[in-house]
């Protein structure tokens, strides 16, 4: 990688287009707008391997495909520029973010995983049994006459003319 020589900085800044009033007329601008529409809507460069290989090969000239993308993608140009010049400064991460990311990749012991599932299953069974026990103890002794559901009818009524009523109503209602 060639080392930057800061001494020549001002000698080489000959024309500053940022302070240039720009080209006269609006026709050229309209054309530029149309062309940029087509250019900037193209798919971003996705050949990461080629890009990475070139960035780290300090003396290699920039391939045309990468030149083309960098010319129209300021964010990529910014990253590549600072990577090539060794100026990409890492930011500091918050403790919360660091811990979260660390947790993503920490190994999960199989026994611990099984243990969690087993505990959850055992808890579910225990709750079901407890509910059954409570339900059983809360219910008092019941007789057939106390039940007023659909199935509460006497078989001896089935021969009467109103047998169909017994099928639908409690015995005391019929």
């Amino acid at each position, binding site marked *: *990688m*060639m080392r*930057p*020589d*800061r001494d*020549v900085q001002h000698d*080489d*800044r*000959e*024309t500053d*287009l*940022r*302070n*240039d*009033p*720009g*080209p*006269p007329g609006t026709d*050229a*601008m309209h*054309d*530029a707008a149309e*062309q*940029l529409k087509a*250019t*900037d809507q193209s798919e*971003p460069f996705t050949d*990461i391997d080629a890009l*990475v290989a070139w*960035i*780290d090969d*300090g003396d290699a*000239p*920039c391939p045309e495909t990468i*030149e083309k993308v*960098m*010319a*129209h993608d*300021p*964010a990529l*140009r*910014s*990253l590549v*520029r600072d*990577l*090539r*010049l*060794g100026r*990409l400064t*890492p*930011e500091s*991460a918050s403790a919360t*973010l*660091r811990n*979260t*990311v*660390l947790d993503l*990749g*920490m*190994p999960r012991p199989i026994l611990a995983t099984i243990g969690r599932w087993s505990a959850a299953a055992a808890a579910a069974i225990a709750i079901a049994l407890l509910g059954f026990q409570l339900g059983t103890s809360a219910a008092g002794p019941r007789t057939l006459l106390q039940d007023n559901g659909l199935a509460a009818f006497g078989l001896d009524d089935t021969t009467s003319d109103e047998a169909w009523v017994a099928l639908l109503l409690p015995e005391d209602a019929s």
Partner: protein
Amino acid sequence: MSDTHRHPVDLEACFTGDAAAWTAFVDGTIGLVITAVRRTMGGPGAPGMDVDDLVQQVYVRLLQHDRRLLRSYDPARSALSTWITLVTRSTTIDALRRKRLPTVHVDAALRIPTEDQPPEARESALNAIPIDILTDRQILVLRLLYDDGLDVTDAAAVLGVEPQTIRSTRHKAMERLRTHFGPEASKTTTAGEG
């Protein structure tokens, strides 16, 4: 590339789920991941997108499918810092696309800059140049020099060429612009180019 960016991480141990190796990997890369996320987002943040969420997405992607992406890294080809930076960029772009963030229409970015505008607004001056009259390399050189503010030596280092090549490319680009815009434009550019 500086060797300080080459992190001594035992990737093989990372693949097997070694906690210490994973901690070293995260500590060696998370700062760059944050930087790359911010750069790709184009500022301190974007509406609806959280930098921390995107950072987590990068590491999730590295770990998915039994660390398939992480295993694809080849230390012989590149520095880990370079690789993780571009993986981060790719992941962030994917996330931004899924979110479909609002974008600035190109016409709005093509307004002629004025002196009282901030530098980032004046960056669009080069956008007013018809791109078909310059080659991609010429556009790139002009953007490195005038949008990004690099000197010739740094621009040469970025592109892997000699400084003289940068000067020559800039000169040819200016010639093309003079030809295209005519004598009126050359009055403004001749003064600065020596």
